[in-house]
């Protein structure tokens, strides 16, 4: 088991993203650092469009995550519905 992670800029939009991520990844760990929020999980993490739309109350395109993204670790798979990070181990 290894950690996948995603780091977001600490801003208003990211707060919604974090809320959605937390809901879909209950075991994920949220770390607040200067100007950034780092979210870690064991082997797998998902950001779901539907969940983000629900907390934001508007349409949200998965590619919009790039506006607030700082970095990530893990194998990335992105489609219309979600972005996933995975380690195959």
């Amino acid at each position: 088991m290894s950690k996948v992670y995603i780091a977001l800029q600490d801003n208003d939009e990211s707060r919604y993203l974090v809320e959605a991520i937390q809901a879909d990844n209950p075991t994920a760990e949220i770390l607040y650092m200067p100007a950034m929020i780092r979210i870690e999980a064991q082997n797998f993490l998902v950001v779901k469009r539907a969940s983000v739309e629900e907390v934001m109350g508007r349409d949200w395109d998965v590619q919009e995550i790039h506006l607030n993204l700082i970095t990530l670790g893990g194998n990335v798979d992105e489609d219309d519905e979600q972005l996933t990070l995975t380690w195959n181990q």
Partner: protein
Amino acid sequence: MAAKKLNIKDKYRLLTRDLDWEFSYQDRKQAFPFEEFEGIKITDWSQWEDPFRLTMDAYWKYQAEKERKLYAIFDAFAQNNGQLNISDPRYVNALKIFLTGVSPLEYQAFQGFAHTGRQFSGVGARVACQMQAIDELRHVQTQIHAMSHYNKFFDGLQDWSHMHDRVWYLSVPKSFFNDARAAGPFEFMVAIGFSFEYVLTNLLFVPFMSGAAYNGDMATVTFGFSAQSDEARHMTLGLEVIKFLLEQHEDNIPIVQKWIDKWFWRGTRLLTIVAMMMDYMLPNKVMSWKEAWEVYFEEAGGALFKDLARYGIRMPKYADLIEQEKEHISHQAWWTFYTHGHAAGFHTWIPTDEELDWLSEKYPHTFDQYYRPRWELAKAMEAKGERFYTKALPQLCTTCQIPMLFTEMDDPTQIAYRESLYQGERYHFCSDGCKDIFDEEPEKYIHSWLPVHQIFQGQCGGPEVEDILRDYYRMNVGADNLDMKGSPDEARWKLWKGVA
């Protein structure tokens, strides 16, 4: 007829992947001539998995939004004289290293990815490289713009481009990227796309930029994080390249492993300068170099290599040595710059007592034993008005071009020296890693433009060091170099802040 909705993968594939064709009128190999000489075997480019599926219209839209936000902050920063909000004027010296040493690498990355973005005969990989090329141009330009305001109020940033091509310590980053660009297109991708982007740039852009935020530098943290959001795409490309090469042919595995060994070693040597920036040049500390290394290299890199093990790829050679070095390199590097501070384009200083205590706490196994005594000695000499500068020019490692400052890890009081004989000439190295790299491709490395050799050969003017600094490097001697104490930077800061 109702159109079926296309998902993003199918849409991207249809819009992009079939643009290419088999030639009928020319030899296609002549249009893509550099794909074979490295020995890499590609059996089917169509197996390429697109890491992200950004079409150009989406790219323009999202990138324009990022740029609007970024430039709004640059404007506000300049209009409000944001430089007054930084924690301490010493901090700006890290930015001087950044602009003279790192930003030109972004430019070389643009050039390198433009090269692969033209040369790969598979359209998927090619387009991914092109998008990285334009992102890299973005990075160098936003960095120039972010530093533009600092340049108006601090010394040492003004001739960054001229300096990058000439100054002794800047040949370290420059030669690193020259090396990658001079290699074949696949080695370039493993060097920069994978080794550098995937693991090593995080160390520069994430903890260091977080440090910029912690030191009140809005302009830098904003470009740093905004750039890093592109980097997430680049990292994914880097990982995709490796997986693709390894899946294409088993003969690729030993070649890729050799490149990984080379470029992780070269990369860790390059990051010595970032280690020093984090431990010594950020007045407000976020985390130590050692801690950053553990999070971003050992943990993240470890997970990565576990993932790659199924292809038969192992951890880079000397990973165990690298692990020991995290306790030492920042201290060894800052001491070297402190003692050569008359010849550097930025200011150096003795850490404050509070900072020395922080270093003792963060480096319990090494700092008090090996490094603190040096600073105590430097403090005593400075108190007597005898600020110490080494007059001799340092000997450089032929491969990484860093002065011989690294020690043996089993004896941190003993400087490490290695050497190789090639065609009757003796070449010197800082480590087994750098010697291995040379021995593998001596014909390449004997052409290195080693700044100290060039000075001795009279290629950089002179005869005095000060003549070289002034005439060849175009430094403003007495303003750009020497100690922070007594510098014009310090004097102006005190004036702005109304302190004596």
